[in-house]
């Protein structure tokens, strides 16, 4: 599904990513973790075409995406859902309008939008909140709207950059549970997080970055019963 070969990303003298090679299979759920500045967000940015690697090659579905122009990057993003820590919603628009945005840019007909938006909101547990303004929602609800917008196109890949970073423990758990539900529907999910508690509670394959280098790849562990494994990380 996604193949990264010897990816290097440098900003001047600083190497944000150093020789990162990763294979992500279709339908996988992967955490990308590491301390702040380890390169998690940079790796995700390269995946959705916001940054170009200084060297190396990345294939998504067999297509080399390291050399795409801006127009092709837009096409790439239509097949990816992206979720951010700060939600990136349009506060003056309703929940439904925010979610519909991803369908509108691909030119989906109105009847399709009217059918798929409530379905996506249903998946994230916001059915009935279509007409609420995004700015009137809690942080957890806003993040769920962002997830609904990311999945409404039924993308092959969902990229989440610290999706629980602005949420308290209970809401963070809810968000990860929603991501798990989406994963069970066949979507490949990559989550950048440094929340060890959540990773313990919902064990999946982990890519651990340290100073821009992939320090380890860990297979899913059994669900932790440790006291700090309550998702409050």
């Amino acid at each position, binding site marked *: 599904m996604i193949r990264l070969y010897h990816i290097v990303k440098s900003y001047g003298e600083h190497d944000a990513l150093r020789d990162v090679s990763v294979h992500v299979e279709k339908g996988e759920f992967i955490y990308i973790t590491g301390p702040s500045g380890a390169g998690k967000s940079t790796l995700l940015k390269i995946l959705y075409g916001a940054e170009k690697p200084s060297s190396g090659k990345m294939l998504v579905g067999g297509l080399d995406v390291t050399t795409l122009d801006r*127009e092709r990057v*837009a096409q790439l*993003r239509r097949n990816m859902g992206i979720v951010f820590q700060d939600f*990136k*919603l*349009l506060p003056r*628009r309703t929940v439904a309008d925010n979610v519909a*945005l991803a369908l*509108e*840019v691909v030119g989906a007909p109105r009847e399709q939008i009217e059918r798929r938006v409530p379905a996506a909101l249903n998946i994230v547990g916001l059915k009935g909140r279509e007409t609420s303004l995004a700015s009137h929602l809690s942080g957890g609800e806003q993040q769920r709207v962002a997830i609904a917008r990311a999945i409404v196109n039924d993308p092959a890949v969902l990229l989440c950059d610290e999706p629980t970073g602005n949420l308290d423990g209970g809401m963070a758990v809810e968000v990860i549970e929603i991501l798990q539900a989406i994963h069970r529907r066949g979507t490949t999910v990559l989550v950048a997080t440094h929340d060890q508690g959540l990773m313990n509670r919902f064990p999946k394959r982990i890519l651990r970055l340290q100073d821009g280098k992939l320090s380890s790849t860990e297979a899913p562990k059994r669900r932790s019963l440790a006291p700090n494994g309550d998702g409050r990380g």
Partner: protein
Amino acid sequence: MIAGLRRVLRGIREHLYFFAVSTGVIASALVLLGLFAMVVRDVNDMVASWQADQHVSAYFAAGVTPEVEAQVQALISQRREVAKVELVTSADAATWMTAKAPDVAPVLKELGPDALPASLEITLQPDDTSPERMSAFVQSLKATASPGAATGTLWEDVDYGQDWVARVHTFLSLLEALGVAFGIATVVATLFLVANTIHLVVHARQDELAILRLVGATERYIIGPFIAEGVLQGLIGGAMATGVLYGIHEGLLVRLHNLLALAMGTPPTFLPGAQVVVLVGTGVALGAGAAWGAVRRFLAGLP
């Protein structure tokens, strides 16, 4: 098409204040341009009336018969640089003088019917009214021989107000330089005003641009509604500017006409329909162009 229109209307509704500000700034800029166009137009009319006033008075010498005067008039009227030739007989001149200065009437009567010489009042083509060309024309006129069998001096005097012509041309050169400088300043100010306002408006909507990029919108998809908003702002701003300019024309310039008419000779006129269309078109181009430039610049900086 309908979806695009809906997006444009939604953008306007969500950012009505910014839309109003942009429209107002475009209208103000167009008022500035329109005022400049109106002033240029009125000055051109004034210059044309001044140029029409520039003429050569050729006074016939005593003894030149009316037949010869008529022949000379016909001869001169055929010259390329001559727009109009009017024969003023001695009697016409006396009538005119009497009307202008009734006190001299008894003196003229005493001097007889030929007290004032007959003359030709010659108006030259606009391109031939420079001091150099008028001087050359006068020299050639003085050298004109009497037609037919007539002999002797044809002219008593040939006058074209040399000092007045020179002053008018100096003033016109200055006016032209000032017009160009003021025109450039107006255009630069207009572009600066509109481009920076729309840049700030787009800046205020940069989150929207970033989100659209992230969900896979193409640049054309993002820029389209902004350009459409710019076109609408230009149309509305153009209509507003036309209204304001008409108000200025009717409420100010026309009322000042009596004062201005002394200097201008012609009443101030409002912009003709074609220039109003150009003004509104300029507003549309400004709105759309500024929006296109500002959005392009922001998109270039987005991931």
